[in-house]
């Protein structure tokens, strides 16, 4: 059992989910409130990363993280190491790839929040920010949780992008999903089964806690 990989997987999934709450919610909020004519274009674009096979997306990310891209050069200049094959690069790639899993359910849930409640909050002097956090967000909670769960679970299982961008470096970019993948590739089914079971069990526990908290908050 690769404990380092287990830790890394959950850290990566947790950080990706957290980052997508921070990045995805504003995008979703914008999508659900704007009256811009062409917002369908943005909506459709958000789903596009999914359409490419993960390794292909990973390949393009690899190229744009590499030393020949401005992004890659800037990162190396700033930190001394490359963006590709680093945990930071992995995180960035995961965030990009999981964006649709977060934004789509977020936006769908926010779109169904009763406008009159938002108006009521504004009328009571609440700033747009407070209204969002105290009214829209709690009312859209099931959708937010759905998006977060999809992001989290999917990041745990993802290995195409991770493999390509991360390069399977133990302790920094070798996640549990790659371990399982490797084990299966080596026809080492016993290890694969054991690792899968751990992955499933821990994820199950995390999900049960998440859902329980969600129901509490809605019913209390």
């Amino acid at each position, binding site marked *: 059992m690769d404990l380092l990989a287990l830790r890394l997987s959950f850290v990566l999934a947790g950080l990706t989910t957290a980052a997508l709450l921070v990045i995805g919610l504003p995008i979703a909020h914008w999508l659900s409130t704007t009256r811009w004519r062409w917002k369908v274009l943005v909506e459709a674009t958000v789903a596009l990363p999914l359409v490419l096979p993960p390794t292909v997306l990973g390949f393009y990310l690899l190229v744009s993280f590499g030393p020949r891209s401005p992004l890659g050069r800037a990162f190396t200049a700033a930190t001394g190491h490359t963006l590709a094959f680093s945990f930071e690069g992995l995180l960035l790639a995961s965030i990009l790839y999981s964006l649709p899993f977060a934004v789509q359910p977020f936006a769908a849930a926010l779109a169904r929040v009763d406008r009159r*409640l938002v108006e*009521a*909050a504004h*009328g009571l*002097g609440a700033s747009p920010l407070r209204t969002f956090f105290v*009214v829209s967000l709690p009312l859209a909670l099931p959708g937010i949780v759905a998006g977060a769960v999809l992001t989290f679970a999917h990041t745990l299982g993802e290995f195409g992008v991770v493999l390509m961008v991360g390069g399977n470096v133990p302790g920094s970019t070798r996640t549990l999903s790659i371990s399982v993948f490797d084990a299966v590739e080596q026809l080492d089914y016993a290890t694969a089964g054991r690792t899968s079971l751990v992955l499933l069990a821990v994820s199950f526990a995390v999900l049960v806690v998440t859902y329980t908290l969600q129901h509490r908050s809605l019913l209390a």
Partner: protein
Amino acid sequence: MRPDARRAGPSLAFDLERHFRDGPVVRAALEVPLDAEPVTVLFGPSGSGKTTVLRCLAGLDRPERGFIRFRDETWFDAATRGFVPPQRRGVGLLFQEYALFPHLSVAANIGFGLARAPRAERNARVLEVARFLRIEELLDRRPARISGGQRQRVALARSLAPRPRLLLLDEPLSALDGPTREELRGELRSLLEHSGIPSLVVTHDRVEALALGDRLAVLAEGSVRQVGPVHEVFSAPADLVVARVVGTENVAPASIVSRDAGLALVRVGTAQLLALDPGGLHDEAFACIRAEEVVLETAPGTPTSARNELTAEVRTVSPEGPLVRVTLDCGFRLVTLVTRRSADRLALAPGSRAVALVKASAIRLVPRAS
């Protein structure tokens, strides 16, 4: 009252036009003084635009044209595209359909507008307002778990709690039972009086308008038709539309037969009536008579020049609260309201005969063109 003819004291003045896509155009112009007479009642038929006006004042809707001024602030001006967002208007709005936050407790709903106050102060204020509205035992519940009338009171509490600079109440007491309503009406009136918060209150209830309001503005057919002291508007509607809106029971077409010394003799149906001549009338008019201004007797008395006596046949008799509504045929259809005691004494029943007495001053002639 033309809002652009500005008064000396502070006022809320607006003149706005809201166009709905495949809906009507709502127009309303009004100036409300803020230094006295705190409560203005907005009266008008269903669909006349009362809610729309309140929403525009609260900043939730943007009129297509016009302006809104509150004291020396311009909240909205279509010409300069000025717009103060709702958060900065300091207005307390009670939504007609409450719009309570379903995920927050009653206490959190009421305290929502007090976010800036320290916790203890907020709690105290929430409790105070909840007590006032008799909902203090509901503070921990969610809105879905209380009754309709309780919800209305929570919504009212939520709009009162932050002590807004202007209160906009869209039918604040409509879902309450009679006794609670009467009680709260009185207390709300004294609260508004003492706090001095200027208020615009929508109601459909004449009694409520009389009990709560200082002034009455009648909104109908897309504009404010009349503004004035409540009693005055009720007893002297400026035109036919207002008469209908305030519920003048008898509005009948009248043609003027002759005029003399401030009085006019008019024909209504087959009857002839003496009425005050308001001047400026053409030959055709409407005669408006409030039902309670008609006195019923069994036999004719001494006719005077200023009093009409109409012999009539009773058509229907139906109880209405403390009174009895009697429909008469006296050459035209005349609805009257009498006390139950009078009805008993006169032995009123369909088919029986009676004499209806109407003072000339109680017959209001309004021009037919309007």
